């Protein structure tokens, strides 16, 4: 029933985003910078740290492109004055935001691919022999699904109040670190590991990392990532209904 509006939101997100010079840099240039940085940080740590060079950069790019781009996108829609006509069309807000987040997810494959290619062909990052490509792909996909659902929750929360938007930049890097994409999960302080456990991205990262270093397909980790993502998605849907009612009460969708 809502497939068509969601697909339309997907297309609009692709077109709108690709037209933004800032996003073009984020998609096509930033991954190289990140690979360069991680290469110098982990370059001498041997193949045990190769995952963070090859995929950490791309997956952090995926996180920024999906979770933060789609969350910020809802705020931008408010700024453009388009969120009111979208809401007034009768399509539930979560359908449109989920469609847009899928668009962001599709685009976020670009930094993963470019940073992986850069690390393999430019920086000659060592790859373990026992690597499971299928497990890796599934892990990255689970990570992406986690970004999508988590980004939906964030995006809807950002709509609640203009003040919450300031959290957007504040949260970006701490969440990347807590997801274990750039820094190994084992290096995180024990106190924050419990927090990372409730993030679907963390389980996707761990699944990808295990497939990379041990050559296995860690189904329980993949299941945890997708299961937690599903909970976030359900929360985003419930939140969107509550938010819709709240913004109708508080006039919170006015153009800023």
């Amino acid at each position, binding site marked *: 029933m809502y497939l*068509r*509006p969601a*697909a*339309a939101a997907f*297309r*609009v997100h692709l*077109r*709108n985003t690709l*037209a*933004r010079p800032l996003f073009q840099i984020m998609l096509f240039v930033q991954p190289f910078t990140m690979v360069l940085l991680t290469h110098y940080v982990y370059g001498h740590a041997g193949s045990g740290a190769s995952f963070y060079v090859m995929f950490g950069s791309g997956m952090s790019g995926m996180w920024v492109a999906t979770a933060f781009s789609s969350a910020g996108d809802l705020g931008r829609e408010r700024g*453009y*004055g*388009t969120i*009111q*006509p*979208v*809401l*007034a*069309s*009768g*399509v539930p807000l979560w359908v*449109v935001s989920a469609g847009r987040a899928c668009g962001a997810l599709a685009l976020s494959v670009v930094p993963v691919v470019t940073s992986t290619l850069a690390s393999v062909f430019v920086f000659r990052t060592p790859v373990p022999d026992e690597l499971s490509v299928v497990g890796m792909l599934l892990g990255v996909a689970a990570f992406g699904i986690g970004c999508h659902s988590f980004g939906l929750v964030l995006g809807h929360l950002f709509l609640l109040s203009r003040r919450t938007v300031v959290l957007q930049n504040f949260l970006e890097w701490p969440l990347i670190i807590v997801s274990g994409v750039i820094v190994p999960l084992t290096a995180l302080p024990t106190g924050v590991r419990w927090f990372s456990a409730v993030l679907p991205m963390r389980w996707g990262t761990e699944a990808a990392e295990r497939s990379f270093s041990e050559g296995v397909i860690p189904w329980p980790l993949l299941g945890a990532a997708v299961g937690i993502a599903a909970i976030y998605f359900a929360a985003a849907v419930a939140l969107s209904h509550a938010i819709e*009612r709240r913004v*109708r*009460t*508080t*006039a919170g*969708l006015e*153009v800023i």
Partner: protein
Amino acid sequence: MGTPAIEVQGLTREYRTSTGLLRRTARVIPALRGITLTVEPGEIFGLVGPNGAGKTTLIKILTTLLLPTSGQARVLGYDVVSGHRRIRRSINFVYGGERGLYWRLSAEDNLRYFADLYQVPLREANGRVRELLELVGLDDRRQERVEGFSKGMKQRLHLAKSLINRPRVLFLDEPSIGLDPVAARQLRVLVERVRSESGTTILLTSHYMWEMETLSDRIAVLIDGSIRHLDSPQGLRLAAVGSHVVELVLGDDAREETLRAWAGRFGQVVSATASGRRLLQVHTSRPDELNADLATRKLSGIAHFATRDSQLEDAYVLMVEGA
């Protein structure tokens, strides 16, 4: 008699705001204070009033983007609080200004997106987009990005977007704001065409009184959240001003009080200035008597005078200033 297009009873809306950084003080600002009105199907209903009178708040409630604080509002028979999903399918709106479009997309892509959101049947959607772009005169610019459009073009695209779902009720909130006279006229022609061709009910707001007078079947004057006057444009004009306005331009030697006393016999007299000269405006429905009397008397101090039909703007200024 059928279901009214819009039915509002005792509608109120308050905004809560707070001031202060450390010690926040909450304030309640009443925007609507017990609005009651009915708009019949196919009617063009005008809503005028000064800035902050509550026009946009009323439209946002009727378009289901805001909830009322109390009272009832129904659009096409559905309650705006509980039946908002049903209402949304059958209405659309234009809010004045350039926002509300995707500037990085083309005109065609903007319309196609909203056709998808409103789930216009697929076999109709492309034709509908083309037809609307033609209607608003943008068919030759359909593939250009909106960011390159003039204000008038954006406003016409807004109107096209608002017609994508063939709405039964259309809300136009200051659709001609900022438009040049030619673009504003084109927009008025379009609005008239929409009503005559599809019988769409239109609720319109504008600060341009001649526009409201030309388009509206009835007009409500909203002041400080309440409807103070509600009638046809002509009814409002006649009740507040009379049929004519006689403007007496006063010379330097004019004794204003004497002239006011004389003119007051024919209607209400208002002092004004125009191009640095003092002016008395006589609102009257007996301009012939006034002119005849003026011809027979030797009244000094009148440099020249002119008689014209009264306009809605004359009535509006009186209503707002007298409120």
